């Protein structure tokens, strides 16, 4: 009798510790995520209030959408709506093109046999270790030479030579059972039909992961658009935001609209993460580990 009480007590104290630890973690997570809360909170205050207010008001007493109205009203040829549209076009274009190019290439490098296959594969892996900064100057002149400065293609094309997607898809495709392939050959299935009807359904999860990562990479891209875009009608969202903040002079005089713009640019990434985090986790660990 007494022993069961002791065990229950032990169990109870263990559970209490677990609950306390969880609550502490939540609190720490709130602290960690505070910059995003602060961004949202500031975006709902008028700048005059936000800059001088102490103590800081995390939940605005008089919330206002004034800042969001300001950023979506075109000013000085800059329009955030236009910039958002540009960002979406470039991100979707990059994503679709990357998938369309990487999948057949990965198929060739994983399932087909031909001379030079391994050489290409190892070159593709080796360039993954080259820092992107090596490409800035030559890309600038190649894009300029093609007459593509200030175009959507200037933002889409340079990324299409990237080999990470091919590498990731290859990892998935190596998993396709050989028997499936043999059966398909016997049925007289062509390589192209095998790719469409067997391989692509098989790599759907990888398509989602690479698609999301390409989309977010393009959506967030900063240095390259900064270099290659000079006309405001092609600005992507991050470039438009930076130019906006420059137009306000002292950045804190425009902090309300700036935080509205910042939150507006972060929100899609946040939503994508919440919806797809499981796939992102799986895809990222597979991309780094390969098969073990």
């Amino acid at each position, binding site marked *: 009798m007494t022993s069961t009480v002791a065990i229950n007590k032990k169990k109870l104290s263990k559970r209490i510790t677990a609950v306390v630890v969880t609550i502490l973690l939540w609190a720490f997570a709130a602290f960690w995520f505070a910059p995003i809360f602060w961004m949202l909170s500031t975006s709902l205050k008028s700048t005059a209030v936000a800059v001088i207010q102490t103590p800081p008001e995390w939940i605005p007493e008089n919330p206002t959408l004034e800042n969001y109205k300001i950023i979506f009203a075109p000013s000085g040829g800059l329009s955030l709506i236009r910039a958002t549209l540009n960002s979406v076009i470039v991100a979707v274009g990059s994503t679709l093109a990357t998938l369309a190019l990487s999948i*057949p290439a990965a198929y060739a490098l994983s399932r087909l046999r031909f001379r030079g296959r391994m050489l290409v594969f190892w070159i593709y892996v080796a360039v993954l270790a080259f820092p992107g*900064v090596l490409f800035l100057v030559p890309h600038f002149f190649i894009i300029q030479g093609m007459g593509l400065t200030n175009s959507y293609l200037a933002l889409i094309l340079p990324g299409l030579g990237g080999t990470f997607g091919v590498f990731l898809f290859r990892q998935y495709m190596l998993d396709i059972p050989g028997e499936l392939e043999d059966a398909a050959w016997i049925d007289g299935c062509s390589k192209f039909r095998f790719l469409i009807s067997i391989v692509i359904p098989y790599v759907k999860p990888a398509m989602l992961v690479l698609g999301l990562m390409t989309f977010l990479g393009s959506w967030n891209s900063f240095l390259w658009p900064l270099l290659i875009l000079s006309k405001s009608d092609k600005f992507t969202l991050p470039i438009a935001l930076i130019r906006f903040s420059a137009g306000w002079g002292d950045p804190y005089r425009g902090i309300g609209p700036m935080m509205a713009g910042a939150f507006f640019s972060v929100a899609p990434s946040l939503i994508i993460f919440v919806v797809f985090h499981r796939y992102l986790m799986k895809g990222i660990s597979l991309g780094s580990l390969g098969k073990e």
Partner: protein
Amino acid sequence: MRQSQSKSHRRFHREVGSWLFLLPHLFFFVLFVAIPLVFGMVISFFNWSLLSDNVFVGASNYVRTWNDSRFWPVVQNTVIFAIVSVPLTIIVAILFAHILNKKRFGQLWLLIAFVSPAFFGSVGILSSWKWIFASFPSGLANYYLNKTGFINGAVSWFGSTGVAWGVIILVTIWWIVGFSILLYMGALQRIPPEQYESAKLDGAGPWKRFLYITLPWIRSVLFFDVVRQVILAFGLFDQAYILSVGGPAGTTRTMVYYLYLVGFERQDFGRAASISWFIFAIVLIFAVIQLVLVTKSIRSTEG
């Protein structure tokens, strides 16, 4: 004779068919990866500009960069940043990965808080951090740190070199650690739990269990992450450009920032290209050193 000819003919056809799948990607690879590497090398040997004719100048861009009194401080900045931020990020990531791998109530909230920032764009989150580290007394960091007595009076966070770097490192870890957390979470899940149990029975404490079980198991991911982070650290640009604008007096400029200034502000593209190859060499040296260190530390625990 005839048969073998038709056989090789068939083989030729089959191979051409296979190449066709690779070709579209290979085209873009050659155009935007292979050619730029060669082209970048060529540019670095020229006095290359937008307006005047390009003149071959031999290795003089490299010599000028080597003797440039503003280049080496920038290298030093970036190297120190890498030495501090890469190990810190990895340690924080492994710690969080351990915590997040235990299923808890509200798991999604923890993932959002610790991991999702890695998927956010630089301009958005950095402008928020810049606002938090505003120099006046009502800036969030100044206000709370004064309240808790850590500082006295308003600190101009980007007004002195050491403090500015501290903020850049802090913000960088906060921003990018999420991706590494995901890597280590995946790696940790592959460790068979029996290994820990038998180690526990043998009386191995948490530190020993980490050294002798966890570390060897996550080795390949650790390698991958080290290389990835070294490349990332030496590519540091957005944080310095947006947070501190390279200041005070250029002391938070990084190698890529310097390349940007030389190439795209002063339009001396030949020299910018030579700087990019210096960066490549430094990254290579660094990645090798880090890999050797990591390998050695793992070997010593295994042997």
